[in-house]
């Protein structure tokens, strides 16, 4: 035994167990997020419960089982005995009728021991008011009943598909086409204001502007009418009536239907298909209903754009600073102070960076830019308000220490002999740095960027102050020149999680969405990092023989 300790075996066991615990924690975390998040996209079975109330009345509850909790209840006959009574959280939907989507039921009050699958139940996802759980009864077009009972499904299928197609077309025209026209009209207006301010707005330019504006207005009206036509078509699709639990009826306009499905009649294969369809919708659609439903596409675009822009900003800043500090600056108290400051900068709470970003970048820098170049837009701020550029800059500042420190580390590892080799061939110091030292330090620079990306993509607090919003009207990147709009506000997955999870009126409905968004955020950070790691490995491969 003593021998065992002397050999240091116990240290190996200690460190191995520390590693195991970390691995288990990481994978446990990921597994939990993945399970809870992905469950959201599954076509759950819908059950039919009969609940007895204290007054003897029997109430029918139809819905998906979402959660189970155990309540401790003392036995009526013998107070010594405590029963664990399960309570079920049922998603009943039909918010417009019941007022809420969820209902807790106590298993003691259930009529039947086992939950019964509801036959032919249909779940209808709507653009507003959430899901409907009910039985298809009749389909009416133009006041005429054209199908009842089991025939409804087939007709509805076709009509609903036409409805979603129309919806997408309307969305495209509204967002992209009319959005583009509006963008141009707004630019025209600003240009006019600018010319007016400079006193160069004369009759000739006025005529030109008016002509251009007339063309745009005409286009706008034309698009408006085509949209109106589409709306009319959508209205004419008719409506479907469903019978819901409790004997009531819900009538849903077909243009309101996102999709519908009959979970209890679906095979495993079609459920898997449904699952991937839901994931696809989640990734590509805009959020609906105060972000509690629909997709997260704008948040994905916002997060990725912000991170990439941050990378572009932080790399030159960090690398130049590191090169100066380790190659040019003279060793001494000043340099030591700078080093200490940089290391401490890494420990400053991120919200402080947010405050700095708001105070300095947004108000001072952005305000001055507005005064200098966008005076004609006053009183509307252009850069003097939180936006993508300021968010990226703040994040670049936040991650700067990481990039500087790892670049310095990389620079200090380049052997002296190689620098001398370069200098001995008549290279100046600058040439040696740019041609030999920096290329060889690229793996270390990439390491810094990987850490920076990981930090920046996950940070939320400072972003709330410098550019992230709950719902951005436009994407930061689109098809209108100059394609990337640095002054726009944007959405971010991290903030989206916070907003959906804790600021939403419908907490239970949005909970799975929180997990799903978290999973997505992790996946995005991991894939951004994997990209950077792949580049780094390729660079390392090139310089690998150097380490001996």
């Amino acid at each position, binding site marked *: 035994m003593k021998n065992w300790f002397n050999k240091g075996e116990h240290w190996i066991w200690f460190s191995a167990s520390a590693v195991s615990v970390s691995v288990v924690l990481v994978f446990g975390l990921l597994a939990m997020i993945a399970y809870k998040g992905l469950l959201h996209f599954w076509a759950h079975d819908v059950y039919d419960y009969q609940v007895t109330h204290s007054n003897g009345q029997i109430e029918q509850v139809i819905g998906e089982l979402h959660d189970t909790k155990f309540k401790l209840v003392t036995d009526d006959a013998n107070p010594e005995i405590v029963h664990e009574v399960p309570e079920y959280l049922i998603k009943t939907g039909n918010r417009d009728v019941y007022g809420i989507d969820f209902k807790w039921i106590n298993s003691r009050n259930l009529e039947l021991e086992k939950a019964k699958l509801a036959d032919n139940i249909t779940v209808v996802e709507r653009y507003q008011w959430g899901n409907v759980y009910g039985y298809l009864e009749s389909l009416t077009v133009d006041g005429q009943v054209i199908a009842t009972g089991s025939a409804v499904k087939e007709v509805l299928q076709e009509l609903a598909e036409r409805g979603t197609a129309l919806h997408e077309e309307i969305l495209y025209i509204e967002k992209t086409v009319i959005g583009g026209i509006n963008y141009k009209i707004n630019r025209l207006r600003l240009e006019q204001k600018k010319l007016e301010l400079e006193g160069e707005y004369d009759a000739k330019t006025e005529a030109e502007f008016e002509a251009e504006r007339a063309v745009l207005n005409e286009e706008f009206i034309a698009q408006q009418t085509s949209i109106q036509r589409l709306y009319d078509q959508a209205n004419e699709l008719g409506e479907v009536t469903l019978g819901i639990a409790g004997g009531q009826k819900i009538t849903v306009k077909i243009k309101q239907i996102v999709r519908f499905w009959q979970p209890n009649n679906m095979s495993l294969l079609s459920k898997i298909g449904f699952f991937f369809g839901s994931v696809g919708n989640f990734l590509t659609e805009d959020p609906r209903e105060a972000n509690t439903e629909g997709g997260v596409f704008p948040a994905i675009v916002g997060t990725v754009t912000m991170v990439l822009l941050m990378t572009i900003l932080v790399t030159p800043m960090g690398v130049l600073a590191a090169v100066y500090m380790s190659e040019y600056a003279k060793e001494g108290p000043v340099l030591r102070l700078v080093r200490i400051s940089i290391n401490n900068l890494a420990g400053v709470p991120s919200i402080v960076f947010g405050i700095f970003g708001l105070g300095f970048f947004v108000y001072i820098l952005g305000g001055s830019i507005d005064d200098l170049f966008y005076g004609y837009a006053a009183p509307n701020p252009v850069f003097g308000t939180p936006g993508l550029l300021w968010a990226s800059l703040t994040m670049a500042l936040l991650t700067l220490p990481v990039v500087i420190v790892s670049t310095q580390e990389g620079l200090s590892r380049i052997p002296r*002999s190689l620098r*001398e080799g370069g200098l001995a*061939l008549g290279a100046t110091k600058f040439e040696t740095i740019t041609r030999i030292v920096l290329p060889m330090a690229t793996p270390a620079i990439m390491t810094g960027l990987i850490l920076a990306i990981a930090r920046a993509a996950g940070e939320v607090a400072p972003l709330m102050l410098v550019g992230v919003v709950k719902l951005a009207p436009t994407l930061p990147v689109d098809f209108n020149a100059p394609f990337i709009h640095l002054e726009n506000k944007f959405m971010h997955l991290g903030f989206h999680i916070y907003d959906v999870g804790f600021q939403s009126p419908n907490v239970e409905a949005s909970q799975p969405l929180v997990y799903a968004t978290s999973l997505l955020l992790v996946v995005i950070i991991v894939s951004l990092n994997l990209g950077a790691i792949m580049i780094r490995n390729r660079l390392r491969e090139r310089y690998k023989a*150097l380490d001996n």
Partner: protein
Amino acid sequence: MKEVTSFSMNSASDKLKLENEEIAIEVKDWNLYYGSKKALNGVTMKLPKNRVTAFIGPSGCGKSTLLRCFNRMNDLIDSVSVDGDILLYDENMYSKHMDVSALRRRVGMVFQKPNPFPKTIFENVCYGLRLQNVRDKQVLNETVEWALRGANLWEEVKDRLDENALSLSGGQQQRLCIARAIAIKPEVLLLDEPTSALDPISTLAVEELIFELKKDFTILIVTHNMQQAARVSDYTAFMYMGDLVEYTDTDTLFTNPKLKQTEDYISGRYG
């Protein structure tokens, strides 16, 4: 290409005389300090053109330091200060107007440990040319071939010029570094213990190379190996504790040293 000077094997019958040589570098009362510590003590010597001059002496005697003065490599160390003059063909190396990069192009250097850049063999050799903004493909190709042939490496690497230089063996790497140094056609070549990290066969290859190269270059070599100094050099300088103790043609120094200190060192009694 430089004019090829006739050279002679260093045999006793054909004595070299420093007085008869054309002088490439002249050192006048040269002192060097690391901070306050004196490392070179009033060195004065004349180094002949197109000859191999070896510097020998025990570790820490200042021979490498002196060698690094000839291309101002010591400038890189902050604590170094110098006084005296070193003339390269009557031009003061340490004058204020001297362009150090240009000087280093005229005085090439090969280091103790092979230090190829992590680039292809081809790029390593033409690195110096690229610094001078030579873009002509043909010039580059010809120079690379000439330099690699000059360094006796061409036959071994001609089919893999695009491979990473780090894939070469140690001896090949050192010859590559020599090729890299001669590719910019310097006037003087400094070799700082060029074979100390190499095996005997590679050492022999480099020594043969030195013998070939002195046709075109003035070569100064620092070595710990006295046999090597005797084999390759025409003149030898023995240094001790920052002093230039004895400096004469190699034959005389090894067979008939003037000073007891030199004799003790070369006969292995100390050092």
